[in-house]
């Protein structure tokens, strides 16, 4: 297999990344051996590749991105699962579920009635964020995690299109105390605001 100079040049980057098949590799190596300019060009390409590969600082979404993915997957999975299981569920279970739903609805009605009497209840689920925070773009995930633990907060939503995360305080911390801790870490946190 003999290559023209143009063909050898086209395949040179793939000799540099060592992905050519046996025949092509041998042919390009032959071309490089007989042309010193190609040899120098190959050395330059290998150097560029090595430099690019040594740049490992990719500030990807990391664990935050994974948490967001899992949350959305769960949202999507929930209705799909119920459709699948509905078809195979025994009739007795369907009746039991219907009774359970009726009980839950009954309790909800009862509770909402009492809530009116006592000034209202707050639901535990579906909590809204008390703080909105934006992190410094290149802040390492480990540093952010440590700061969140220190401030006594957890992420409950985000990132939004603007890169904002919603936080809620964990038991034993107040929003203002958490806000102070976050605000003090200006090397990690770009902005922090109360939502109320």
């Amino acid at each position, binding site marked *: 297999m003999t290559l023209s100079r143009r063909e050898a040049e086209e395949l040179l980057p793939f000799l540099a990344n060592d992905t050519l098949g046996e025949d092509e590799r041998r042919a390009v190596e032959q071309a490089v051996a007989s042309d010193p300019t190609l040899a120098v060009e190959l050395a330059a390409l290998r150097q560029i590749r090595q430099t690019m590969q040594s740049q*490992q600082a990719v500030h990807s979404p990391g664990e935050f991105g994974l948490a967001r993915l899992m949350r959305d997957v769960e949202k999507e999975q929930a209705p799909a*699962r119920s459709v699948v299981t509905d078809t195979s569920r025994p009739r007795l279970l369907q009746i039991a579920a219907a009774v359970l739903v009726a009980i839950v609805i009954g309790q909800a009605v009862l509770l909402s009635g009492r809530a009116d009497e006592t000034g209202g209840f707050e639901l535990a689920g579906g909590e809204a964020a008390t703080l909105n925070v934006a992190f410094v773009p290149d802040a390492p995930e480990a540093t952010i995690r440590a700061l969140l633990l220190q401030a006594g907060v957890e992420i409950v939503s985000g990132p939004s299109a603007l890169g904002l995360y919603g936080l809620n305080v964990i038991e034993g911390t107040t929003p203002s105390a958490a806000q102070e801790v976050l605000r003090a870490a200006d090397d990690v946190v770009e902005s922090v605001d109360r939502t109320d």
Partner: protein
Amino acid sequence: MAGAALLALCQTTVFHQAVLTSSRLRYVFLAWISALSTSHELITRIAEGDRDALASLYRLMEKPVYRFIQSRLNDPFEASDILHDVFMEVWRSAGRFEGRSKLQTWIFGIAYRKVIDRHRKAGRTRLTDTPDETIEDDAATPETCIAAGQDAAQVRHCMASLSEDHRTAIALAFWEDMTYREIAAVCKTAEGTIKTRIFHAKKLLLRCLSGLSGGVQA
């Protein structure tokens, strides 16, 4: 089960830090798990609704896919959104993966198309196979490039100066160590087109690095 043991290994922090942060090691690992059909086992499990398998795949591929997307967009927020969309599509379409290409190629292909869709929605004009710039044969001096190629800032600057198609070809070849056939599969184009793109991209990159095209002054 070798596959299950490997999946468990993928999920450990030590493994993540020691192997997946190194591009070369990641490539070797991907080749290895491909050989053991673990990637196919992963995607099969994802198709069955196994979220742990999706998390393993995400940890394995997130950084290179994000880097690839960002190299085409240069916007970290948009890149994060597209990365999310890519893995949502992997989740939804895992059952349609036929194993005719490597899992890595399939996922990068999804990312490539998502970026194009984003460009279309944003009304950005994407230049596909633009007429190649006229480059003098002796425009670059590779000897100078060897030295300049060691300077990460210069390499970044010169990569950024390339057109999107040229940058993509070089990024997939040098970051991901893909063959020209795999790059063609990602970009859904002919192998000859990829060879031509990389030929011109290489010329422009070397020319930039040799300082003839306004290379960055480090």
